[in-house]
């Protein structure tokens, strides 16, 4: 019993310390959007990369039946990149392979996560939530470009 208590205290301690000290939280953005007008109105009608005043970038994205829009995303290394993504149809996943960016994408909700890519290169993007018969064909690419 004491061994069990000790192990759990250790586990939870590690989680609480990183959550407070390192701001290590799961993606938990709370914002809604109308999925019916996604393709015509607002930031998701023209998905893509915009540069912010602080030098970071924001990427507005749609995950929809079997494609990410945009399919290829170019972002700078070493600067904060915020992904904002939603769906006009069913649930999708947005996972950048080799990183800890892993979002559930739901119609009606905007998922958001911020990261800084340290290493330039090409990263595979996959959908990790079953969305229909071509789920395994849904993929994209993040190209992280080094400082000029």
């Amino acid at each position, binding site marked *: 019993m004491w061994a069990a208590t000790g192990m759990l205290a250790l586990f939870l301690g590690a989680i609480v310390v990183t959550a407070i000290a390192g701001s290590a939280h799961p993606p938990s953005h709370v914002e809604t959007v109308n999925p019916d007008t996604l393709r015509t109105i607002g930031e998701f009608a023209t998905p893509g990369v915009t540069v912010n005043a602080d030098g970071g970038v924001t990427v507005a994205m749609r995950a929809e039946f079997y494609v990410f829009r945009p399919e290829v995303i170019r972002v700078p290394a070493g600067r904060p990149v915020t992904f904002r993504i939603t769906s006009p149809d069913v649930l999708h996943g947005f996972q950048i392979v080799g990183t800890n960016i892993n979002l559930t994408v739901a*119609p009606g909700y905007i998922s958001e996560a911020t990261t800084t890519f340290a290493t330039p290169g090409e990263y595979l993007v996959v959908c990790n939530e079953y969305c229909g018969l071509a789920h395994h064909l849904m993929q994209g690419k993040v190209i992280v470009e080094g400082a000029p």
Partner: protein
Amino acid sequence: MIAATRLILANLAVAIVAFALGALMAVMQAVARAGVQVPFGSARMYYLSVTAHGVLEALVFTTFFIMALGYLVAGTTLGRVAGLKWAWAGFWVALVGTVITTLAILSGTSTVLYTFYPPLLAHPAFYLGATLLVVGSWIWCGVMIGSYRAWRAAQPGERVPLAMHGMMTTVIIWILATAGLAVEVLVLILPWSFGLVDRIDPIIARTYFWWFGHPLTYFWLLPAYVLWYTVIPRVAGGRLFSDSVTRVVFVQFILFSTPVGLHHQFTDPGISSGWKLVHTFTTYAIMFPSLVTAFTVIASLENAGRARGGTGLFGWIRLLPWRDPFFASVALSMLTFALGGFGGAINAAYAMNAMVHNTAWIQGHFHLTVGTAVALTFMGFTYWVLPRLTGRAIAWPRVAMVQPYLWFVGMQFFSIPNHIVGLMGMPRRVYTGEYQDVAAAQAWIPLVNLSAIGGVILFVSAMCYVGTIVVTMLVSPRGERLPMEYAEAMAPPEPGPSIWDRFGVWTAVAALMIIIVYGPPLYRLHTMARFPSLGFSPF
């Protein structure tokens, strides 16, 4: 003869048929993913078979097996199953529901996987059949509670036997869990699938689903724990470590198995991180009784090994009955569950979850837990219980002796590569992991092929099990029925009921905890400005 033997056998039969069908679906998936051409191989058949495998194994096999076990425990510990007609009615309702849902899946109109997240929209028959399966299981709950109350009224002041205590815990967890499912399916999904309402909110539906989805895993696991605690020490030739500690463990599962579901939704939008952290704490609380189980069940086995003359620090292990298929199944289940448990601690880790969420790691994980700790325990138990129920000796004892080891080996081959390839980023539930030959995806291929080998070994093991059971029932002559006996405790229980036997009190506390941890996030979801979604059937 044990009360309600025919009822128990009927439930077992449905469970084993579902298991066999589900295994067939699984081996097709495993080899198709490795690029081997299978008959009717296509993306359509792949996702259909994922749906069928999940429903048949995780929902049908488990539920019918647990209903059989519940009646067996009530019949042997209490000497009665009260309301046998109701029990049969529950069986038929659940069976009809199972047939309807299975047909809906096989028709190709309901390829929504066993998690059926809206706004994926299946044929209404899929939801209707699943509802009947759950209604059938609720009737089982009613019969179990009725049997318990009738026994208590006849034996005032006596303490309910430990195995029945564990099964009552299972019943209560199932009722608490399916309350969430009932809201999702009866209130949200059924009216929507019949076209009475147009729209559904996917995040709200998911939240009610995971209210159900995590305690579902304890609904599977607790009956296995009941066998580990109350039968296996006797099979091994020893005694249960402690009756009282076991009751405390069971009650902790009532308290903590439900208010934890948000750890399945760490990556979801619409739910703030504070509530996700609260559910992380409750999730780690539920690991406590499992860790205590690991320590105390092993203590029982050490007691058995030493009773057989084992000495030294590890000498007792060798003397345990490794050739007994039930003992071997449980011992290998426990070993596998230790790995699964540590993987689960990573899944539930608030921030680390992002590395594994919805990757192949997850299917690796739950094939260790439900796919081995639960399923292998149930398989081994069948070898033990059939001679006791029917008087028939197991037909192929050598096959039965090897089968659990085959499962164990196959599962390591299946599961370890899936864990690794998941960490490398491969998603779960994909027809192929090719991704247009991107370099990152190329590295996954050898591991996927390795897991396919594991899948084939598992299928051979499954067919050994099913074949042995079928031949036993059809060919083995009826002889003397072996006695059905439970393990005695090293420390005998206090004679009268204690606070840990007050199921009503603990159920009320558990319900209060569910309200506390689910009330605020659900209230916020229901009241905020939202845009629910139309249904889609992309299959």
